[in-house]
C-alpha cells in the first residue's frame, strides 16, 4: 500500500503531461486528486503497519544482481512518520498553489514528480535505490523555482540545484567506497541497507567516509556552514516550492544523515559527534540571529528553517534514543510549521501585496485587512517558537533532553537560540501584521486586497490541525518512532548502544 504513494504520484505526472496545453482547471483538479490519493495511501499504509518497530518489506525484487542492487521498498516507524508528512505537505502545497495561472499543468507535473521522488527516498531500503530517488528530486526542484519563482529565481534555482548535486555526489563517493570495502570484507556485493549496516567498516575508513557522506546529506539538511543555498532558494521559490523545500526536501537530507550515514558508520559518528553538535548549535543560533535582522519577510522564514533544522541535527548528534526521537519528531513538526509559515508569507501576503519588505508591509495594517492570515501567522509563529501545545515543543523537548546528558553547555546555547527564535517571530509578526506605523495618506494599494480563498483556508486548517494534534497527542507519532529506535535488533542498535563487534 505504501508503495502506491510513489506510483500514484508518477501516474499523476503522466496524466498531467497528456493534458492539452491551456487546461489549468483540469490540471489543478488532477493534481489535487493525485495528491489526496497519495496522502490517503500514506495514511492507510501507515496505520496498517502492525509493528512499526520492525522493517516491513513492501516489495523486493532484484534489480542489478551484479552489484547487489535490488528494488527494495520497505518501511519502519521512522519512514512512516516522514511519509505521512509528505502526504500532508503535498496536499496542502497544491491547495496553496491553486492560483497559479502560468503553465499550470507543467507546474503540477514537476510538483508531483518531486513528491514521488520524496516518497521514494523515504521508502527505499536499498542504498542505490535511495540515491536514485534522492537525485531524482533535484531536477523538478530546479524547474519549479526557475520558472515559477520570484526574487532572483534563476540564480536561486541554480544555486540550490548545484549545492544539492554536489552534496549528493559527495554521498556517491562515500557509497561507492563503502560498497567496495563491504564487498571485499564479506565476499559478496550488496547495496541492501540493512546488510551494509551489519558490516564492520574499518575505523580509519569510517573516519573519513562518515563526514563525507554526512556532509553530503547535510548540505541538503541545512548543516551550517553549507546552508547558504537555503535562504536564497526558499525566497526564490514559489510558495508551494518553498513549502516543499523547507518542509520536506530538507528532511530528505536529515533522513539521509540518519538512515545512511549514521547507520552505516556508527563508529564514525562517535568520532565526529561533538563537531556535529557544535555545527548544529551554531546553525540554530546563526539562523535565528540572521532572521532577526532581515528586511524581507520571506528571508526571515528562510533563515528560520536553517535554525530549526539545527535542532534536528543536534538531536541526531546526541546518539541516544530520546534525542533521535526528538530529531525525527522535529522533522515532522518543522515540516508542517514551515509549510504554514511559507504559505502565509508567500501565498496569503505576497501574492496579494506584491511586496515582502517590512517597510512596506508596516503601512498596510494587514492584521486588519487579512485577519485570517494574521491569526494563522500568530499560531504558526508560536508553534515555531516552540510553545507548548504545538508539535514543536514536544520535539524540542526531546532534543534538549537528549542533548543535556551529552552536551550540557551546547544545550544551554540551544536555549539561547530558542529565545532568539521568539524574538524574530515577534518582530515579523509586529512588522507585517500588527504594526503601529502610521498608514500613509495615499498608499500604493488603493484597491482592497482579495479575501483569503477557500483552498487557502482548508490548507491552513489542515496544517494547523496537524501541529496541534501532534502537540497535544505526541504519542501518535512516538508510538511509531520509539519502537523503531529501541528495538535491540534494529539497525539503530549499534548506533545507540555503541561498540562494534
Amino acid at each position, binding site marked *: 500500500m505504501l508503495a502506491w504513494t510513489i506510483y500514484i504520484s508518477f501516474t499523476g505526472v503522466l496524466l498531467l503531461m497528456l493534458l492539452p496545453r491551456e487546461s489549468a482547471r483540469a490540471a489543478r483538479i488532477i493534481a489535487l486528486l493525485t495528491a489526496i490519493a497519495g496522502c490517503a495511501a500514506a495514511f492507510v499504509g501507515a496505520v496498517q503497519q502492525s509493528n512499526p518497530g520492525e522493517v516491513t518489506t513492501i516489495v523486493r525484487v532484484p534489480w542489478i544482481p551484479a552489484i547487489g542492487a535490488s528494488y527494495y521498498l520497505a518501511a519502519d516507524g521512522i519512514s512512516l512518520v516522514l511519509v505521512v508528512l509528505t502526504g500532508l505537505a503535498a496536499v496542502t502545497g497544491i491547495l496553496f498553489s491553486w492560483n497559479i495561472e502560468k503553465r499550470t499543468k507543467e507546474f503540477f507535473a514537476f510538483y508531483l514528480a518531486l513528491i514521488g521522488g520524496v516518497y521514494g527516498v523515504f521508502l527505499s531500503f536499498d542504498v542505490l535505490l535511495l540515491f536514485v530517488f534522492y537525485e531524482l528530486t533535484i531536477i523538478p526542484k530546479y524547474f519549479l523555482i526557475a520558472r515559477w519563482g520570484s526574487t532572483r529565481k534563476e540564480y536561486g534555482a541554480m544555486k540550490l540545484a548545484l549545492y544539492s548535486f554536489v552534496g549528493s555526489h559527495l554521498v556517491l563517493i562515500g557509497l561507492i567506497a563503502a560498497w567496495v570495502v563491504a564487498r571485499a570484507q564479506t565476499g559478496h556485493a550488496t547495496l541492501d541497507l540493512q546488510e551494509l549496516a551489519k558490516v564492520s567498516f574499518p575505523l580509519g575508513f569510517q573516519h573519513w567516509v562518515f563526514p563525507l557522506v554526512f556532509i553530503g546529506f547535510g548540505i541538503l539538511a541545512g548543516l551550517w556552514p553549507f546552508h547558504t543555498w537555503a535562504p536564497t532558494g526558499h525566497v526564490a521559490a514559489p510558495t508551494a516550492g518553498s513549502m516543499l523545500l523547507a518542509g520536506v526536501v530538507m528532511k530528505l537530507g536529515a533522513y539521509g544523515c540518519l538512515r545512511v550515514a549514521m547507520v552505516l558508520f556508527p563508529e564514525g559518528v562517535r568520532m565526529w559527534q561533538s563537531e556535529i553538535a557544535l555545527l548544529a548549535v551554531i546553525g540554530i543560533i546563526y539562523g535565528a540571529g540572521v532572521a532577526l535582522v532581515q528586511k524581507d519577510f520571506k528571508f526571515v522564514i528562510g533563515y528560520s528553517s536553517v535554525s530549526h533544522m539545527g535542532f534536528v541535527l543536534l538531536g541526531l548528534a546526541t546518539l541516544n534514543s530520546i534525542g533521535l526521537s526528538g530529531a525525527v519528531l522535529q522533522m515532522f513538526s518543522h515540516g508542517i510549521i514551515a509549510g504554514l509559515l511559507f504559505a502565509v508569507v508567500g501565498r496569503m501576503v505576497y501574492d496579494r501585496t506584491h511586496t515582502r519588505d517590512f517597510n512596506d508591509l508596516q503601512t498596510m495594517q494587514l492584521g486588519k485587512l487579512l485577519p485570517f492570515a494574521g491569526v494563522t501567522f500568530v499560531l504558526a509563529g508560536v508553534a515555531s517558537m516552540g510553545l*507548548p501545545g504545538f508539535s514543536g515543543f514536544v520535539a524540542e523537548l526531546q532534543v534538549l533532553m537528549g542533548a543535556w546528558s551529552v552536551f550540557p553547555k551546547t544545550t544551554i546555547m540551544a536555549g539561547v537560540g530558542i529565545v532568539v527564535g521568539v524574538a524574530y517571530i515577534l518582530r515579523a509578526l509586529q512588522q507585517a501584521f500588527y504594526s503601529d506605523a502610521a498608514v500613509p495618506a495615499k498608499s500604493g494599494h488603493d484597491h482592497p486586497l482579495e479575501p483569503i480563498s477557500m483552498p487557502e483556508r482548508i490548507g491552513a486548517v489542515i496544517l494547523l490541525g496537524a501541529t496541534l494534534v501532534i502537540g497535544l497527542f505526541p504519542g501518535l507519532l512516538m508510538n511509531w518512532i520509539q519502537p523503531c529506535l529501541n528495538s535491540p535488533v534494529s539497525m539503530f542498535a549499534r548506533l545507540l548502544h555503541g561498540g562494534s563487534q
Partner: protein
Amino acid sequence: MNSMPWLTILTLVPLIGGIIIVGLGVEQRRLARGLALTFSLVGLAGALCLWKLFDAASGDLQFVERHEWVKSLGIQYFLGVDGLGLLMVILTAIVVPLSIFASWRIDDRAHIYNALALWLQAGLFGTFTALNFFHWFLFWELVLIPAFFLIKLWGGPKRGPAATQFFIYTMVGSVALLLSFLAIRLATGSFDFIELAAMAKSGVLAGKLGAAFGWKNIGLIVFFGAFLGFAVKVPVVPFHTWLPAAYTEAPSPVTMLLTGVMSKMGVYGFLRILLPIFPEQMRLMLTPLIWLAILTIVLSACAAFAQRDLKRILAYSSINHLGYCLLALFAMTGAASGVNLPELQKAAALNGVLLQMFNHGLTASALFLFVSLIEKRSGGLRGLDDFGGLRKVIPVFTGLMGIALFSSLGLPGLNGFVGEFLIFKGVFPLVPWAAALSTIGLLVTAIFLLTLIQHVFSGPLNARWSKMPDLTLSERLLVLPAITLMFVLGIWPQFVLGMVDATAVKMVQQLNF
C-alpha cells in the same frame, strides 16, 4: 473525592467560551460582552462550588485527576488543588469578571478582546491546577499569548515595545525554566511536582542530579534556571523592567488581570515548585535572595514615589507588595531546623504570604479598576498633576477609591493589613535585620499613597473637572463586592485563612527534615 473531573471542566469553561465568542461578528459587541461575562461568572460559580466541597481540614491535594499522556516521556495529565491552588483559582475567578465588566466600553473588535480575556482565564486556571511539569508549562506559556495581544492591540501609545518586551522577558525566563526541568527529568525520570518534592525532602534529588551530570554544582545551576523563570514573572528586581511599561500601556482592565492574577503566577511558582524542589539551594543562597527581596521592596517603593502617572505608581506599588511575599518565603526557608520555633510560627509567615497574594490581587485590581473609571471621565488623562480636589466633585468615588488605597497602604481593619502583619510577624523572628530594612518600604509606600490621595483628591479643585460625574449605579455595584471583601477580610481574615491554613502547615512540614 469526586470522580467528576471538576478541574478540567473549570478550565474548559472559559476556553470554550472564548472559542464561541471569537466566532461572533465584529458587530455583535453586546453579545460578545454579555457572553464573556456569563462565562466568567459561571467560572466564579464553579470556583465557589469547589470551595464548598473543599475539605479545609486536610492539607492534601483534592479533586485529583490523573491520566497517562505520553508514557515514554513521563508526561501525565495530573491536576489537583490544595489550599494554595484553590485560593488562586478563586482569586482568578473573582478578578476576571471584574475585568470584563470594566472593559464594557471597549468597542474595537470586542469579540476578540473578550475571547482573549477568557482564554487568559483558562490558562490561569490551568496553571494553578496542574501538577505535572509538561502541562503546567503548557498553560504557563499559553497565558502569554492572550496577554501579549491584549496589550498590543488595545494598549496605549507605546504598546508595541511594551508588549514585545513583556513577551521576550518572560520567554527568556521560561526557556531557563524549561532547561532546568529537562535536566531534572533526565536525572530523576520524573516531571511530577509532588514526586520531585518528595525526592527533595528525602535528599535524593541532589544526589541524582549530581550522578546524572557529574558536575558538583549542577544543582545550583538548575536552581538558577528555575529561579529565573519565576523571578521574571513576580517580578524580582532586577528582572522587573518589563513591568512598568506593560502595566502602563495595557488598557486598565487588562492591567487588572496582569497585576491581579498574572503576577501571582510567579509567587505561586515559588511556592509550588521552587521551594519544595530546591530547598537546599535556597538555603545556600539565602542571604543574596533576601537582599533581592529587600531591594524589590524598597527600590520599587522609591520608584513609585518618583512617578507622575497614576498607573505607573500603582505598577511599582505592585512590585513592592509582592516583594513582601518573597521576603517571607525566603525567610521561611532560611529557618533551618536549628532554629527552635514552633511550626505554627513558620506557618504564620506562610499564611501571611498566601493571604497577601489574595489581598493584593483583590486590592490592586480594584485600584486599577478605579483608575480606568477616572480615565473614562477624564478622557484618558491620568497624571498626578492633572487632577486636584476631586473629592469635592466625586465624593463617593473618592471614598471608595480611598478605601482601596488605604487597604494597599496597610491600614488595620482593611485586608491589606492582615497579610503584611502576618508576614512581618513571621519574618521578624527569623531574619530580623531584613524585616527592619523592609519597613522602609512600608514607610515609603505610605508616603507615595498619601501623596497620591493628596494630589488627586485633596487640595484645590482643578476647574477642568468641576463637572465630573460621580459613580453611576452600575459602577457602584461593580466595585461594591471588592470593597466589601476588603472590609470582610480585614476584620475576619479567617474567611480565607480557614481554607489555606492546613495547606500552609503541610507545606512547612515539607521543609523540615
